[in-house]
C-alpha cells in the first residue's frame, strides 16, 4: 500500500510552484462560459503566450464558475503580490490583448475591465463556492493548496464520529435539496441505525429546470464533495457511498470519476484512509432523465437499476434504504458545506445567516435581470437585495413582477414581498419554498397563468404514474390551464382547478405530486386578476 498523501507538503510545493510566476491568469472553463466561447479564448491566449515568449511570466489556469455567467467568458488576472483584475466578455481578441497589453506591457485593457467591488460580488458570501473560479478542478494539488482535505484529516485524527455529528448539529445546517431537514439529525439517525452495511448517497440529480448549483460543485470542486462525503461516512459509519448524477451532466460525471480515482491513489478513499482504520468506496451512478429520481426513494430504486418510482415513507431510508440497508441521502450542496463546518466549527457556521436558517445558500439567478449567474448569499438576505443589487435590477426599462423559487415545486413571490428575508420559513409562509436554489426573476411582460401552465406541463410529463392523484391530476390541471390560457376557460374551470390543487396536494404519494400544485396556487393567490381576465364567462358573471 502506497503512503497516503502528505497534505502539508503537497500544499507547500504547490504554493512554491505558483510563486515562480509573476502573473497568473485564471480563465473560467465552466459550462456557461464555454458556451459563450471560453474554449477558443483560452486557445487564443495560449497562442499569444507562446508567440510572445511569455511562458515563464504567466501561468494559464482553467477554473470553474466565477459567477457572473451573463458576462462570460470571464477571466481573472493575478499579479504576484496580490493585485487582482477581472475581465468580462473576453473574446479571443480581448484575451490576446490581456496577454499583450496587461501581462507584457503592464497596461490593463480598460474596455473589458470588470469591477470586482460591484454589488454583484460584494454582496456575496462564499462557503460552498469558495473554490469555484479559484482552483483548477482537475488538479487535486490545487484543492489541497487551498486547504483541501484538511477537514477530513482533522475529523479522522482528532475527532470521534459523535463529535463530528455534534458539530454538524450545532451548525444548524439544513438540507439544501429542498425540504430543509436538519442535517445533523439525519446523520444521528444513520449513526444510530443498526447494521454492518450502511450506505451514503450524494443526491446530484438537480432536477429543477433552471438551476445548476450542484453541477457547479461537482464540476468545479469535485474534491470538496468527496471530502464532505468522506467526513459524513466517517461520522455515520457508512462504508460505501454513491454519487447519483443526472445523465445531462456528463462533465460532472467525468470530473467526479477522475477525482475519485486520484483520491484513491492518494489514500483519501479506499482502505485505511490517511492510515487510519476508516475505509470508504465511492461510486458514481448516472440517472437517465427522470425528475422524480431526485426524490430519495425513487433515487434509490434507480441506483438499484430499477424504474425510478418512489415509495411510501416510513420506513425512512435511514431505516430501510439501498438493498434494504440503512441509507442516508444528502444533497450535494449540503455535503459541500461539511468541510468548512469541520474546519471552523459548528458555531462559526451558525453565526452566518439567521437562527433558523444558518449558513449560506447558492442560487442560480436567472431571468429578466441585468446580471445573471451563480451566486452564494447568506441566508436571510432580502429578495430585494438579490434582485436590485446583485442582479442589477430589471433591464429594458421594465419592472419587477415576480420571483420564482423552488421550480416546479415552488411558487412566485410578487413585488410587495421584495423585502422578505430569504430563509426556509419566510418563503414557505409566502407560499413558495427555498427549493434547491433556482431563482428566476420575471418582468411585467410575463403572464402568470402561462408560468403556471409551464410548470404544470413539467410536472405532468415527469409524473412517474405510480399514484393516481398525481398521474391523472396533473393532466387535468394542465388541461384546465390550457383552456384558461387560450381564452376558453370558464369560471367553473377556475374553481375546479383550485379544488384539484387541494386534492392532488393532499393525496399524492410523493413530494412531486404533493408540491406540483404550488406554482398554480401561488400564482392564483397573488395574481388572481390575471386568471379572471382570461375567463370567457367573466362579463356574464361580473354583471
Amino acid at each position, binding site marked *: 500500500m502506497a503512503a497516503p498523501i502528505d497534505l502539508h507538503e503537497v500544499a507547500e510545493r504547490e504554493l512554491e510552484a505558483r510563486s515562480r510566476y509573476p502573473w497568473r491568469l485564471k480563465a473560467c472553463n465552466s*459550462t*456557461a462560459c*464555454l*458556451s*459563450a466561447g471560453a474554449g477558443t479564448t483560452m486557445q487564443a491566449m495560449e497562442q499569444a503566450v507562446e508567440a510572445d515568449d511569455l511562458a515563464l511570466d504567466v501561468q494559464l489556469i482553467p477554473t470553474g464558475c466565477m459567477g457572473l*455567467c*451573463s*458576462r*462570460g467568458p470571464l477571466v481573472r488576472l493575478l499579479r504576484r503580490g496580490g493585485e487582482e483584475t477581472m475581465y468580462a466578455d473576453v473574446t479571443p481578441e480581448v484575451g490576446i490583448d490581456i496577454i499583450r497589453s496587461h501581462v507584457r506591457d503592464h497596461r490593463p485593457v480598460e474596455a473589458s475591465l470588470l469591477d470586482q467591488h460591484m454589488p454583484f460580488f460584494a454582496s456575496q458570501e462564499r462557503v460552498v463556492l469558495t473554490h469555484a473560479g479559484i482552483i483548477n478542478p482537475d488538479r487535486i494539488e490545487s484543492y489541497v493548496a487551498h486547504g483541501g482535505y484538511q477537514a477530513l484529516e482533522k475529523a479522522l485524527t482528532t475527532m470521534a464520529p459523535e463529535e463530528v455529528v455534534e458539530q454538524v448539529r450545532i451548525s444548524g445546517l439544513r438540507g439544501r435539496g429542498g425540504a430543509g431537514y436538519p442535517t445533523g439529525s439525519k446523520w444521528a439517525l444513520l449513526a444510530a441505525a443498526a447494521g454492518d452495511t450502511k450506505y451514503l448517497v450524494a443526491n446530484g440529480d438537480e*432536477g*429543477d*429546470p*433552471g*438551476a*445548476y448549483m450542484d*453541477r457547479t460543485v461537482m464540476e468545479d470542486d469535485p474534491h470538496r464533495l468527496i471530502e464532505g462525503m468522506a467526513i459524513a461516512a466517517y461520522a455515520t459509519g457508512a462504508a460505501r457511498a454513491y454519487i447519483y448524477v443526472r*445523465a*445531462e*451532466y456528463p462533465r460532472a460525471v467525468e470530473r467526479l470519476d477522475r477525482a475519485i480515482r486520484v483520491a484513491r491513489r492518494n489514500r483519501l478513499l479506499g482502505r485505511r484512509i490517511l492510515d487510519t482504520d476508516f475505509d470508504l468506496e465511492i461510486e458514481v*451512478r*448516472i*440517472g*437517465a*432523465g*427522470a*425528475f422524480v429520481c431526485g426524490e430519495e426513494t425513487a433515487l434509490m430504486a*434507480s*441506483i*438499484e*437499476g*430499477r*424504474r*425510478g*418510482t418512489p415509495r411510501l415513507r416510513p420506513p425512512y431510508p435511514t431505516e430501510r434504504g439501498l*438493498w434494504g440497508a440503512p441509507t442516508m441521502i444528502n444533497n450535494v450542496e449540503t455535503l459541500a458545506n461539511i468541510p468548512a463546518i469541520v474546519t471552523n466549527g459548528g458555531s462559526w457556521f451558525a453565526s452566518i445567516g439567521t437562527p433558523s436558517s444558518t449558513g449560506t445558500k447558492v442560487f*442560480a439567478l*436567472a*431571468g*429578466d435581470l441585468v446580471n*445573471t*449567474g451563480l451566486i452564494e448569499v447568506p441566508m436571510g438576505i432580502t429578495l430585494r437585495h438579490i434582485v436590485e443589487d446583485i442582479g442589477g435590477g430589471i433591464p429594458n426599462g421594465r419592472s419587477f413582477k415576480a420571483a*420564482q423559487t423552488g*421550480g416546479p415545486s415552488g411558487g412566485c413571490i410578487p413585488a410587495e414581498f421584495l423585502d422578505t428575508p430569504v430563509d426556509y420559513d419566510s418563503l414557505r409562509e409566502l407560499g413558495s419554498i427555498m427549493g434547491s436554489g*433556482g431563482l*428566476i426573476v*420575471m418582468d411585467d411582460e*410575463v403572464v402568470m397563468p402561462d408560468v403556471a401552465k*409551464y410548470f404544470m406541463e*413539467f410536472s405532468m410529463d415527469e409524473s*412517474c404514474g405510480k399514484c393516481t392523484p398525481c398521474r391523472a391530476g396533473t393532466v387535468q390541471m394542465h388541461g384546465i390551464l390550457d383552456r384558461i390560457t387560450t381564452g376558453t376557460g370558464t369560471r367553473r374551470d377556475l374553481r375546479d382547478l383550485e379544488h384539484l390543487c387541494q386534492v392532488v396536494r393532499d393525496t399524492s404519494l410523493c413530494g412531486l405530486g404533493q408540491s406540483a400544485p404550488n406554482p398554480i396556487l401561488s400564482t392564483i393567490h397573488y395574481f388572481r386578476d390575471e386568471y379572471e381576465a382570461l375567463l370567457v364567462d367573466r362579463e356574464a358573471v361580473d354583471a
Partner: protein
Amino acid sequence: MTSTVDDAPSQAPEDGHPSGDERFALVDKHLKRVRYEQDQLIETLHVAQDVFGYLSEDVLMYVARALLLPPSMVYGVATFYQLFTFEAPGDHACTVCTGTACFVKGADGIVRTVGDAYAVAAGATSDDGRLTLKTARCLGSCGLAPVVVLDGTVHGHLDAAEAVALVRAAVDGGGES
C-alpha cells in the same frame, strides 16, 4: 448486492452477438467491467445507446440475456427514463432548452417555429430523417437564455427566426453532422 429474480448468481454468458456485429463487443466490455451486476442495468443501457445510437429490441434482448434479467424488466426500465430512445436519430440534432430561464425568454416559440419548419414534433425525427428535434431541461447556460444546441454546438440569445435560420444552414446547407 443485487436483487436477482430467481436468486441465481449472475454469470457471464457467451460473448458476442450471433450477427457478429462488432459493436456488441463494446457492450460486452462494459458488462465485464461491472461484473454483470444486475444493478448496472441503467449504466449498461447508456453504453448500449452510446454505441448504437438508440436501443433496438435486439439490443434490449441482448442486455436482458447478459444480465439474466427478464426482458419485461429491461424494457420497463428503458421506457421509464426519458433519455433512452428506441428509434434511430436523424442526421442532425437540434435541442432546444425549455428550462425555466429559457422558457421566460421564449423557448416555446423556438420549439414551435423549428417544429413547424420541419414538420416535426418535439422528441421526434422528421419523416425524411434529416432532423431530430429535442427539448432539454436547463442546459446550465441560463445566462445565455434562450439556448439551442445544434449538433453539439451551443448557441445562446436566439429568437425563433434566428434559430430556424441556424437549423436551415445545418440541415439544408451543410453536410452530415
